């Protein structure tokens, strides 16, 4: 749920990176932190990991200012993927404005992907969100590894869902991370503009929204 406070002209949005354990959610966030150069970027907070695994969550705040002076914040969260942290996942997922589902492309991980996706559906329902209307992007990560499911096969499998086409990524090498994020921003913009009139009320059009929030470090800022 977008957190809008008109008195100080602020709008805070929440994006959650969801997926099975070890699919690369934290890696996605770390890459965004180092690759992105948005108008405003906070510190990446990695909360307590043990053996490389997220115990609580990771969080990266980024932001941009509109012509109207609107202070727009995006907080990017990851959830812990392991089964036993379901209540943490639910807490982080509640009031989310958008979700990036990070799946693991390895053949051996397809069951885990399915389980995690089912868990996402279930938890969305529990926190009162609707998977069919929530802006979401689906990424298949670890494309650099051997023994991954064929892309054509994956695309075909997901062809009849609202999340087609899928995003392919090798987050560890920074590939596909920003692309996924942009697809998400595009879908998110539609919803947020509808509700808060970003374009007409604050002079933030779709292109500005996506470009300003996902500008890569090497790109020249507009």
């Amino acid at each position, binding site marked *: 749920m977008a957190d809008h406070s008109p008195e100080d002209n602020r709008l805070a949005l929440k994006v959650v990176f969801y997926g099975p354990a070890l699919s690369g959610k934290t890696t996605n966030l770390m890459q965004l932190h180092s690759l992105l150069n948005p108008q405003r970027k906070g510190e990446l907070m990695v*909360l307590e990991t043990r053996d490389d695994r997220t115990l*609580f969550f990771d*969080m990266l*705040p980024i*932001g941009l200012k509109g012509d109207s002076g609107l202070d727009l914040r995006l907080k990017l*969260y990851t959830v812990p993927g392991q089964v036993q942290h379901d*209540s943490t996942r*639910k*807490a982080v997922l509640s009031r989310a404005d958008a979700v990036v589902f990070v799946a693991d492309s390895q053949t051996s991980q397809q069951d885990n992907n399915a389980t995690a996706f089912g868990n996402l559906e279930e938890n969305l329902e529990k926190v009162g969100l609707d998977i069919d209307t929530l802006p979401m992007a689906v990424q298949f990560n670890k494309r650099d590894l051997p023994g991954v499911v064929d892309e054509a096969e994956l695309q075909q499998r997901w062809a009849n869902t609202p999340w087609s086409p899928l995003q392919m990524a090798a987050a560890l090498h920074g590939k596909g991370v920003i692309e996924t994020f942009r697809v998400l921003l595009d879908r998110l913009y539609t919803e947020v503009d509808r509700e808060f009139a970003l374009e007409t009320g604050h002079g933030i059009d779709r292109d500005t929204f996506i470009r300003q929030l996902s500008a890569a470090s090497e790109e020249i800022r507009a």
Partner: protein
Amino acid sequence: MRNFEDDPTLEDLLTADQLQRLNRMLSALCREPVEIGSARETDAVALEFNLETVGWLSGGSSEQERVAAADLVAFLMMFIAKYRLAANLHHDTTEASYAELQKQNEALRASEARYRALSDQLQDKVDEQVAVIKQAQMDLYESARLRSVGQLAAGVAHEINNPIGFISSNLKVAGDYVNDLRELVPDTDQNRELLNDFSDLIGESSDGTRRIASIVSDLKTFSSIDQADYTLCDVNELLSSAVHLLQTEYGHDVDILEKPGELPKISGHPSRLSQTFYNLLDNAAQALKLRESGTERGRILAKTTVTSDGIQVVIQDNGCGIAEDIRERVFDAFFTSRPVGAGTGLGLTVAQDTIRAHRGSIQIDSREGTGTRVTLFLPVS
């Protein structure tokens, strides 16, 4: 309530005490004392955390010094905030899990209570069912016994018919012989007295055989051994033999008034109809027995009339009546308000089934302590 993810304020991150200490330590490092606060002084530098200005740092000897101090504070703030976030999240999820557990616990408790109640009820239900089964068993036994007694009676009646036949014709011939003897023996007072007595004996015996013959005929009609299926029945005849049989059973304690009307014959099952009439008459007789003493003499009325499209049979008594609370249950199989052995409890159910099989209807009007009227309606075709 605040969420774990709400942006922390300066007060969230540091207590007043800690803030004071931080100010002292920073001042010791700087050339001029610095101070952190939530109000913006003229030369203040913003303390940023997570894109959020959480406070302002003022004082110091130069802008450079203020910026350096603010950077240091922001760096420290990061770790404090991390801890806060983790702690808040932990608190939130623990609370949510606890609430969930409590809900589950409650649900569990409720279902346990339900099962306990169910198991208590189960014992009652089992007891109840056992009683019903026992009753049904006794009733079945009783009705089987009655049925076989009925069959036996019918069989005996059939067998008795022949000897009764020749006994009565022999008695008639014997009566003629007595009259012949009057011509042959000397006419003395002693002989006359003897022959008169003899004639009376034969007359009484003939009466006896006639009564036996009539009982046998009623029994035969009642059990209708000869007619297995639907035939044209004379309802008056069936009712009458049931009345006679009942009279035989109860002797002259009950007055039964028969008021047969002119009836067309109807298609029916004679033995089942007889059984029904008998059951209803038997109920009436029982009701008379249970009548309060000192009331008028018990009477049963058995009346038949013809209606526009059928015939009506009324069996009415001035007995104890049926209590209001059980009136609705009188047709339930095995329901009986009488002590076991006195009745099968099947009487009214059988009656109802039979009347329904004849596409007729049965109606009961009763007032406790005053009497009961059962009205049967049977269609003609």
